[in-house]
């Protein structure tokens, strides 16, 4: 699971008011190369929750993203590379996503998060 996917998933348990962002528990992280696509990254930057990405990538062991970012930084190739790495190249292969409100764990196995709910959570 890439951190771009993490940036859109939320906990869907009944009664949870604020299920975003899910915390990450790392078992194993893998990296896969993705060619730099500056236009795509610019579009994404406008839409994603950057703070959540910074925290998530730190949890995954990558701390090079600046804490704060603004659109003008998208002109810098150095920043684009870091963004590309954090957003698309890091994968949570094993571990869990954790509901920020209830602490319920959604397991991630072979890169696939299981967000299915138990009967009493729907």
């Amino acid at each position, binding site marked *: 699971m890439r951190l771009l*996917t993490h940036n859109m998933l939320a906990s*869907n348990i009944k009664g949870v008011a604020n299920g975003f962002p899910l915390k990450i528990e790392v078992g194993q992280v893998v990296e896969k190369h993705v060619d730099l696509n500056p236009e795509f990254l610019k579009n994404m930057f406008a839409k994603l*929750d950057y703070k959540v990405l910074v925290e998530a990538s730190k949890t995954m062991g990558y701390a090079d993203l600046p804490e704060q970012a603004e659109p003008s930084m998208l002109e810098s190739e150095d920043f684009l590379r870091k963004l590309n790495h954090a957003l698309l190249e890091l994968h949570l292969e094993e571990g869990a996503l954790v509901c920020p409100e209830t602490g319920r764990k959604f397991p991630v196995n*072979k*890169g696939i998060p299981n967000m299915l709910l138990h009967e009493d959570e729907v």
Partner: protein
Amino acid sequence: MKLKQLEGLLGSLEQFSNPKIEFEQYPTGPHIASRMLYTAENSFGDVSDKVVADFGCGCGTLGLAAALLGAEHVVGFDIDADSLEIARDNADELEVDMEFVQCDIRNLSWNGQIINTIVMNPPFGTRRKGADMDFLSVALKVVASESVYSLHKTTTRDHVRRTALRDCNARSAEVICELRYDVPQLYKFHKKKEVDIAVDLWRFVPQGKQ
């Protein structure tokens, strides 16, 4: 990539080994899948460099077609772990990146507007009435920011249009073409070897966006 080439690649994919009747697991055939994604890309520019989601992705045919046509990030959602495993192997086989999430589309929780395009072949609702409209509603109201491509039985055309425009706030709902869908004889209650039904390929645009 040429249409024929895309269809050929999709034709080589592994399909459901033990289809589960309650989830309406029948594969979106290579003919339909290739035309669906080819049209989305070449007539509307909704695929390359986009973030694409495949709802009820099964063995991944539609999402993988999007990846082959240059989508930057593709996520497939399905309720069934066995199908997702086949889909992941299909992605490895094609050497493309596709992500997967196991979930029930009906209670998907979501943040933001990152997904541009949704492609889906929802359950037609023959097992559980309204299953197709559940998918459409989540796609249009919760997740997609630019467009939704979906297949629905031609016999339900008026109902689909009304539901999309009135209940799901779609800005537009357009039938792009009518296709023949072979539902193979996977299940005992299908008497004929193959049931060939007419389906519409729809393109919806959600509200408040482009």
